[in-house]
């Protein structure tokens, strides 16, 4: 594999990073909304959100990307592959993160909410200052785990013709007929993205544990 091919892979890597970043950021924001709606106490809203989560957890990511890419085109909404895949991954991430964070919010002891209420803190402050910081710590391993999965999940974007790292690897492999070499390099590049995230997550966990150690 020559320099040119490797540069082509790096171009693919660039799109994988960009796609992951968008899915992280937008998925986290939407996931927070899902988690809050899921714990809002209004039965109808909670049921709708439970259904939303069930749909995304119960179907393959690949199918979700297909539906967004081809489905939206069918109803006349034109989107390029980049936007469609970003939207698909964002929806997917929002459902998973929403459910992870819902569980974490509910795992914070009830006394915390009661103490916050007794201090006349309103809903926004109760969430922002009291519950979410604690829920974040509880959910950290699951959140990091999901985000790592999400990076790897971006490889499915290749299926709708989006040239990210996996598809770039495919193209190169078809040109130089060295699949083992090419995909070893592709795998190493994925590992270089995911592994630091895992290490950073472990670091955060230790830091949080230090402040709450008795």
């Amino acid at each position, binding site marked *: 594999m020559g320099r040119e091919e490797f540069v082509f892979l790096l171009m693919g890597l660039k799109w994988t990073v960009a796609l992951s970043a968008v899915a992280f950021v937008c998925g986290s924001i939407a996931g927070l909304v899902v988690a809050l709606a899921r714990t809002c106490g209004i039965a109808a809203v909670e049921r709708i959100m439970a259904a939303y989560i069930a749909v995304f957890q119960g179907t393959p990511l690949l199918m979700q990307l297909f539906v967004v890419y081809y489905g939206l085109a069918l109803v006349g909404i034109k989107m390029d592959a980049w936007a469609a895949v970003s939207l698909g991954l964002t929806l997917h991430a929002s459902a998973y993160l929403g459910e992870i964070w819902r569980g974490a919010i509910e795992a914070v002891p009830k006394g915390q909410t009661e*103490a916050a209420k007794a201090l006349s803190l309103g809903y926004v402050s109760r969430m922002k200052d009291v519950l979410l910081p604690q829920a974040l710590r509880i959910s950290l391993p699951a959140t990091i785990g999901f985000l790592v999965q999400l990076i790897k999940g971006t490889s499915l974007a290749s299926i709708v013709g989006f040239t990210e790292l996996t598809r770039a690897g495919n193209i190169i492999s078809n040109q130089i007929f060295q699949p083992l070499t090419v995909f070893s390099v592709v795998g190493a590049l994925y590992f270089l993205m995911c592994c630091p995230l895992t290490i950073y997550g472990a670091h955060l966990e230790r830091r949080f544990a230090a402040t709450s150690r008795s």
Partner: protein
Amino acid sequence: MTQAAIRPDASEPMITMSGVGKWFGAFQALHNIDMTVGKGEKIVLCGPSGSGKSTLIRCINHLESYQQGEIHVGGILLGHASKTIDAVRREVGMVFQQFNLFPHLSVLQNCMLAPMRSLGLSKAEAEECARLLLDRVKISEQAEKYPAQLSGGQQQRVAIARALCMRPKVMLFDEPTSALDPEMVKEVLDTMIALAEEGMTMICVTHEMGFARQVADRVVFMASGAIVEEAPPAEFFSNPRHERTRKFLGEILGRH
């Protein structure tokens, strides 16, 4: 301040409960509760486990809703709208059995949060007030620590300071010493006694009968969700009128 100035004033009720009823599903937890607490009055609420005493004080700041009757706190009718609930909660401080400090915030931040968020104090004002009250509960040197680094007694004193930072007119104590190791009970009770001497209106759910004798203006005994009898401590302990009270006192005092 003279003694006369801080004597409880029954003519100025701080809390009135009239005909309060509360259900958990089909189970009736409170039956027709009538109680008036005057400004500066100290009430000790006792009774067997499950008698509704915690439920009663949790109704006063609407941690529990009630279905029947009326509760007035500091002249405000405690309705079910969030506006009046917030208004009442700003006047009423609460201390819990399990402390319920915010574990991710330092002692100082625990005390500053609510004054900044719900009273709109600036950071500097909130910090000044917090340090003053932490000093009053004799824990100012621990201000930068996190709750998990403190003993149970210290945590509970921080919880008292945190509630006082809101400048409440009433303090509710829900079994504040029940989760403490025996050697830490005294430091918390001493803090509560000091608070009582300053004229705070207090309702304490507790089994510390020594505290009741020393501090309470009235002891209220509850059983099965109803008030069975209430009397000044001297009379309550020496001459309980009801059989259930005698039985309860026999059990609780017999242990000591």
